[in-house]
Each structure stands twice: as C-alpha cells, then as structure tokens.
C-alpha cells in the first residue's frame, strides 16, 4: 500500500516549463491571485497586531474607495506617483537606470520657484511658464548623466544618485539662506501667490495636477507605444548591440529617454510645489524616487499599467496613513504592507514565465 503510493510519487515529478505565450486572462488571474495572496499575509499581520477584520475592511475598502473623500485623496496621492512612475518607466525602457528622480524633482521645484519668486512672465501665463521651467530644470539635471553615459560610458546609477545629494543640499542652502521665507523665517520657500498655484477642480481637494498627469501620460503613451522613437527604443532596451548593428541612433535614443525621464520628474516636482505645498520645501521629494522605481518595475515599464499601479500604490498610502492615525500602528508596518504586496506581485512573475506541470515517467 505504502509502496504503491511511493511509486506513484517516484514516477511523477513537478516540471517547470517555459511558457511560449500566455493569454491575457491567465496573466490577469495570476496577478490577481498574487495580490490576494499578499493581501492575505497583510491581513494576518494586521489581525496579529490587534486590528479587527471588520475595521481592516472599512479602512482599506470603504473609506479608501467607496467614499468621496477617500477616493479623492487617493487620486491626489496618485498624481505625483503617476509622474515619477512614468519618469522611471521611460528611462528603464532603454536600460538607463535613473536613480536620480528625487534630484530631478527638486530641480523641477526650483525651476517653478524661480518663476514664482521673480515673477517671470505675465500672471495669466505664470503657471505654464512654471511648468516649462520645471521641465527644463529636470532635463538639465538628467542631461549630465545621459551625456556621460553615452559618450564616456559612465555608470548612470552612480552619477544620477550623487546628483540627488547635490540637488538636495542646494535646496537646503537656498532655504536656509537667500530663499528663506521672509514672513516666518522658517527654512522653506516663500508661499506662492494664488496665480502661481494649481487650482482645485472643485471636487474635494483634487487639483489640476490631474490634468498635468493626464497630459504627461498621453505624451508618454504616444512616445513609447506609437512613435517611431518608441519602436526603436524597444530595440535599444532589449538588445542594444543589435540596435547598433541595424543602424539605430542608440546614443540619441538613450540620451533622449533619459532627458524625457528628467522632464517628467521635474514635472512631478512642479505639481507637488504648486498644488500641495505651495512653496519649495526640502522634504517634498522624500521617497518619491524609490516609489517611482517600484511602480515602473511592477508595471513592466508600460504607461497604462504605470497609471494603474500608481493608483493602487496611492490607495495603499492613503489607507496606511489612516491605519497609522486611528490604530496607532508604527510607520514601519505601512512600509511592510507595501513591501509584502510588491514582493508577491514580483514573485508571481515566475508563474507568468513558467508553467508547472506534473509529469509521469511511465505510461499509465
């Protein structure tokens, strides 16, 4: 009896096979199962911390998605996440590992603040000018690493990372020095005038940053999915040697993508400064760089998925925030929840690529 069952085991084994292709339906259900799995672990942890199941449901579902205030704050939270997610995705598509998104955000916010402080341009055009300056400053900050990479093969991970610190300390220098708020002498910039703020659209606190993010999304979608640049950049990302051999302008494509990434990060800086903070602060970019990387990674560098993932990430932030306030959970637990969900989705990639199969050795 036991022998036969043992034989059964010995004659079968789990094999791992590469999937040739995967249907959209199966892909979606694998992702969904991973999400459920991750959420399950998170629920177990929260229950272990003494939070009741019903209140988890209320916080994560009812007050986050089914409530006007909740969903609007998710949207507000998601706007800069979409922008940094797109910034990372655009660069990662061509294997330009832009770790300097936070620095480029600071530069964007500096650009916008320069326009606001020195009242450049007529008031009616003040916001568009701030936007353009933010883009240009972001591009400027990505330009150096891009040129260093394509001309001298300098590793962009190091150069963009170090430029983060330069931008950060430059902001600190300005805020403790010449750009200190003249009114309260605090180390943050002078508040923007009303004409220099992105107005609310009239639903809860949602502001016109949503239009900026939507515009950025459309441009990026067109650029990577429909333009010739997008097709070429896919080849650069997958096989740059081949791209070179068939005569694609590889250096231009890498540098162009890096600068597009910088301009998107700069735009994120502009949106935070002009719609949330109303000034330049030295905490405004904290953590966004890495959130952008995670979002782009989970979204497979695709623009549409980036928006979806950014939205989910935003809701996680919002729900986590209220967990923190109402259940006095530590900050780290919110981070833990995010990490668990990110890890389960990452791990599910295995099941997307491979198929597990029970194979027998004998004709039965």
């Amino acid at each position, binding site marked *: 009896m036991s022998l036969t069952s043992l034989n059964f085991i010995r004659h079968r084994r789990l094999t791992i096979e*590469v999937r*040739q292709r995967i249907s959209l339906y199966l892909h979606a259900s694998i992702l969904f199962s991973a999400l459920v799995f991750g959420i399950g672990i998170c629920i177990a942890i929260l229950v272990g911390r003494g939070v009741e199941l019903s209140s988890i449901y209320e916080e994560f579902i009812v007050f986050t998605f089914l409530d006007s205030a909740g969903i609007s704050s998710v949207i507000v939270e998601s706007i800069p996440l979409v922008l940094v997610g797109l910034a990372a995705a655009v660069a990662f598509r061509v294997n330009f590992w832009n770790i300097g998104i936070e620095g480029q955000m600071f530069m964007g916010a500096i650009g916008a603040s320069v326009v606001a402080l020195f009242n450049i341009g007529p008031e009616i055009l003040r916001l568009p000018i701030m936007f353009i300056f933010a883009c240009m400053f972001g591009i400027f900050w990505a330009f150096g690493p891009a040129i260093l990479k394509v001309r001298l093969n300098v590793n962009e991970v190091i150069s963009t990372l170090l430029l983060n610190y330069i931008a950060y300390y430059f902001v600190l220098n300005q805020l403790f020095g010449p750009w200190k708020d003249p009114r309260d002498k605090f180390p943050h910039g002078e508040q923007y005038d009303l004409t220099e703020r992105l107005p609310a659209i009239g639903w809860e606190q949602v502001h016109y940053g949503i239009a900026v993010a939507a515009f950025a999304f459309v441009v990026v979608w067109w650029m990577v999915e429909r333009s010739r640049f997008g097709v070429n950049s*896919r*080849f650069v990302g997958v096989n740059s*040697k*081949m791209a070179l*051999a*068939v005569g694609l302008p590889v250096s231009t494509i890498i540098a162009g993508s890096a600068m597009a990434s910088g301009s998107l990060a700069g735009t994120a800086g502009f949106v935070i400064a002009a719609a949330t903070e109303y000034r330049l602060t030295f905490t405004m970019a904290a953590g966004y760089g890495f959130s952008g990387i995670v979002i782009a990674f989970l979204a497979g560098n695709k623009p549409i998925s980036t928006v979806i993932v950014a939205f989910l990430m935003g809701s996680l932030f919002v729900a986590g925030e209220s967990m923190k306030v109402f259940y006095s959970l530590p900050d780290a637990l919110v981070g833990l929840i995010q990490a668990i969900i990110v890890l389960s989705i990452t791990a599910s990639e295995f099941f997307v690529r491979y198929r597990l199969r029970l194979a*027998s*050795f004998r004709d039965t």
Partner: protein
Amino acid sequence: MSTAIEFEGVHKSFGQNAALVDAFFSAKWGEVHALLGENGAGKSTLMNIACGLYAPDKGTVKIDGETVIIDGPQSASGLGVGMIHQHFKLVENMTVLENIVLAHGTGSWRKSLQTVREQILNISDEIGFNIDPDALVNTLSVSEQQRTEIIKVLIGGAKILILDEPTAVLTDEESSGLLNQLQRFAKQGKCIILITHKLREVFSHATRVTVMRGGKTVDTGKAPIDLTPKQLSQLMVGEAPEITHITHSPPGEIVLELSKVAAKRDNGLPALDNFDLKLCAGQVFGLAGVGGNGQTELAEILMGVRSMNSGEFHLNGKKLAKPSTKQLRGLGITCVPAERYVYGLAGDLSVMENCVITHLKSGQFGNFSWTNKRAIYKATRQAISKNEIHGAEPRTRARLLSGGNAQKLVLARELSGNAKFLLAHSPTRGLDVRACTAVHEALRESAQKGTAVLLLSEDLDEIFAISDRIGVINNGKIVGVFDAPADRREIGHLMVSNN
C-alpha cells in the same frame, strides 16, 4: 553487443508543440550511433531526456535492459549517462579543474580538487587530450572547451556519451580528430551517441544510424554502409534535397573595396593586417578560413560596429573615412550576422518588430510620429509566408523560433530592401539541410539581382556550393583568391598553412 540505452514510446510536448511523438531509439554498447535529423526533428529533445534535463510526458527509458527513472542531471550521471551539449555548460571565469569539481566533486572542495586534478591528468594522458587543469575556461579555444566537457563527463563515470553536434564548432581537422577519438571510446566498450546533421560524419564514423523527422523515429538501427547518401538524406528531409547547380555570373562594377586595412581584436592583438578585398556586384565572394583568423573583426567593420586602425574603405566608389552603421546602412549595406541573437534579432521582441526594424525609416510603415501597426502586421504576414518561416506568428517572440526559422527571418528582413552589399557570416551554422538550401538559394538570388555578396564561412562545402569567387583568409590576410570552381585541396592547404 547488448543494448545500452533504449527509448520506447516517448512523448514530449512544449505547450502546444509536440516535440516528440512516440519516439523510439536504441543504442548498443561498443558502437558509435549517429542520430540524424533536421533542426527541430526532436534529436536534442530525446537526448535531453536521457541526460535528465527534460522529463518525458509518456514513455520509458531503459538502460542495460532495466527501466530507469532519470529525474535530473545528477541521476543521469549516476546511471552513467553523460551529455556534451552544443552550448557548453562551463563557467567561463573558472578553471578547468574548478568546473569539473563543481560537477563531480565529492565531500570537501579541497580534497576534491586534489583527486579530480589527478583524474584529469590521468584521463588527459590516456586519451591524448592536452588540457591544463589550471587554465581558465575563457582562455581556452572552442575545441579545448569541448575536450574539457568530454573529460568532465568521463570523470563523472559516463559510459553512455551523448554529443550534440560536436563538430559544428570545429575545423575539419579537429573534427576528424574528435570523431576518431569517439571511435576509440566505442572500441573500449562505451556507447557513443552522435547527434548530427552532417551525412559525411555518419558515413565515415558511425556504426549504425537512427533518423528522426518531425518528432518521430523514421528509421533505426541500419548500418550506414547499407544506405546511400541519397537514401539517408531522403529519410531525413522526406525528399532528396536538390543539389544546386549554379551558373556563375560575370562580375559587375566594384561595390566595396577595402585596401590595406588593419584592425585589432578586443584583446589588443592584431586581427586584420594589410587586408585587401574587392567585391563586385552580382557575385558571391566566398571567404574561406578557419574561425578566428579575423573574420569576426572583418564582419564587425563591415557592420560599422568596429573601427579600422588604418586602411581605406570604399563603397560605391565613395571613400568613407570612418564608416558608421547608420552611414553604411544608408548606402545599402545589409548583413546576416553569425550570432543571430546578438546582432541579428532582438529575441524578446515580436517577429513583426524584428521584421521591419530596418525599414521604419523608409516611411512605408508610417512617419516618425505614428507607426502603422496594421501595415507592419500585414507586411510581416507576407514575409512569413513568402519565406516559409514556420512556427512564426507576427506576435510571437523571436526567441521562440527554431534556428533555421530565425535565420529565415533575418534574411527576409535584410533582403527585402534594395541591398547593394550583403554580408553573410556563417549564415547556415547549426541549420539543417533544408534550411541551408533555403539560405543558399536566397543568397544566390540576391546576387543575381545585382547585390555583391560576401560569404564568410568555415564550411568549405558551403563556400564551394554558392561562390563565384573564392578567397582564403589566414591570420588576418587574404592569402589567395580564385575563380570558382577552384581546387579544394589547394584552398584547404592555404587555410591551415602558416605564413
């Protein structure tokens, strides 16, 4: 002679593709058994089951008459089965010794190093392989790496040796050396299974032959002497491949001229030195030579991915000071590179993207702001059916194509424009007879249309089959140029002689 290994009713499918359908095979102790078949016939799949890389969906494997379960490379090795794969399974930046200990060490690493070192030296001595156990694998030549693999499976105690197209990467001389060695192993009582698609090897060295086609065994156990080459190739491909009788075309105007070109290898040693080459429109120029005599560097210069140190480069009568890829492509250079998935295709992108990437600039698939995916899809469909690229849908990933079909895809792309010059570097490496013929026909056809074709190949049969002019490269120089038909022995001599 008793049966060493036997397969019965083996099925294996990958997704919806059935790789093996009711395949059977048996080989005896003391013989060299050739396993013959086209690409995708299932030879490698069957043997990968024997060495524990794949599990069969159905069917039995018997060794010495007993049914065995091979559930991994370790268990295969324990049963005395050793396989030398087409792509060597060696860690490049480790030494020969470390690689072998990694595979077959027992107990402590340090002790294994000692015992395995002795084993390597003993076996090397015994079979006349001159392998330094402390050499780093990436400093070894291809044939030395192959010898390392052979020593590795011998140390693992292999009595059944499976070699997957071992001569594909070797020169003529190295090949016959290896095959003779395999025959000696067989005389010692081992069972040698030789996966190949070279008929000549079957006739010269195999005791018996099994032919597979489309995942099925079509004939097994005959001695090659009982068959004619025509019969055998008929079994392999289902029909006899046409032997192409080419009509040589007269030279047109000079398309490409290199004079006194010098270039260096990656390691700084000279690759090309005082290299002269003239290519005429409408002709296939076959450049014969043993691999590593500067062909790769020449190909890279012509593709524009390596720069010359000195010399002159004329294309269409125009002197190019520093030819870039973009410039060369613009002037009508196309190429079929040796490493398909390095310079030829982006494996993770779709067939349709790979099929049109060089034509996007022409504007036939939309302008810079909007690529017309429907037009691309349609053009790819046409290219697939016109070039008989099997197993390809416009949206399949290029990596999933078999060798021959991947090469057809590269050819389809490179030949679809108006090429002035076509570089084909080992275009049929690893392809089966039918795919070879298709590639050769495509090259001849493009020459007839007026393209200057440069064929770099280590396979003399191929050079003789389709060239109008034949040159020999040796040590970075052209050492002889002949009009076809040329004397094969003289060319062979120029290829290997020192100068």
